[in-house]
């Protein structure tokens, strides 16, 4: 019995080490969140890509809505909001459309596999002075359910997730 216990102890320790190692690595690899109590969202730019006005507005409004819900910021300011001027740790989100494909809701509903709408946006988070803090390319898609504008909702949810992963009001 003692022999069994003696051999089981190192084996269980080995298993524990194997399980714990990736978790510890993941915890170490996770970047520290940057401190930002508020964010200002600038209007979506689309100089190179011809983007319909309703998509531009929908991207902007969904982004603000999702950042308010999931971004983890105390305040989300719109472009031009004078109240943002005195916020010390404000970050600014610049978004530029890099790719856009307007699909067809009818094609999606009839064929299931065709007619997807997708939008690719380059998001740059900077501080008040314009110093870049984080850059990401984020895509929004609608494959089957919903109208074309749902791609903007998909993008906004992902962008708010990125903001939540990298910034927090307290900082860590």
């Amino acid at each position, binding site marked *: 019995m003692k022999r069994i216990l003696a051999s089981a102890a190192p084996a269980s320790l080995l298993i524990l080490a194997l399980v714990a190692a990736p978790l510890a690595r993941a915890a170490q690899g996770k970047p520290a969140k940057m401190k930002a109590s508020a964010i200002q969202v600038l*209007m979506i730019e*689309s100089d190179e890509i011809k983007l319909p006005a*309703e998509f531009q507005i929908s991207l902007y409004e969904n982004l603000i809505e999702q950042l308010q819900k999931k971004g983890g910021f105390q305040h989300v300011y719109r472009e031009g909001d004078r109240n943002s001027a005195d916020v010390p740790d404000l970050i600014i989100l610049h978004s530029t459309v890099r790719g856009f494909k307007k699909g067809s*809701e009818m094609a999606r*509903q009839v064929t299931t596999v065709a007619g997807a709408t997708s939008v690719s946006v380059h998001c740059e988070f900077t501080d008040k002075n314009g110093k870049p803090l984080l850059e990401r390319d984020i895509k929004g898609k609608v494959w089957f359910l919903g109208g074309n504008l749902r791609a903007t909702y998909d993008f906004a949810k992902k962008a708010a997730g990125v903001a939540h992963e990298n910034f927090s009001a307290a900082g860590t």
Partner: protein
Amino acid sequence: MISRAKGIVFATALLLASPLVSVSNAQQAPGPTKVVQLTGLAGVKNNTKGKLEVESGNLHFVHSKSNLDVAATSIQDVVTGNDSQRMIRGTLGTLTMFAPYESGRFLSLFRSPLDTLTIQYRDADGGLHGAIFTMPVGKAEVIKSELIAQGAHTSIPAQTDAHPSGTKEQKP
């Protein structure tokens, strides 16, 4: 003599008919338009049905719970577009997906065209907002013209709006 009498009768008929003509013109005067506010109006939920009207220098949105005014002078951009939607929508539309023999897909082919109206405006703090409305075909141009007449701005000149509904402006 007979021709003179005919002239008098004709002139009298014209005089009598003129009030009727003016009444019919008054009936054609633009009234509230049934719209769906897709997104953007402060304090109004997405996809809210209501009525839209331009009066006293304001874009007036009325729905079941409250009213909302946006000053025409605060509108920085008005753009119209076009889209289409399924004729059978909502819960019933979703249920048709489970209809036998792929008849739901067949029903997706039946779509009704609609106009979109997209505006960008500033709030009292200078914050930039965007709002998107959908409405019956032909109504968006009328509202746009009224807004411009009352001080709203547009990035796309009114002359280019004279296209048929299939080739409406698309903001670059």
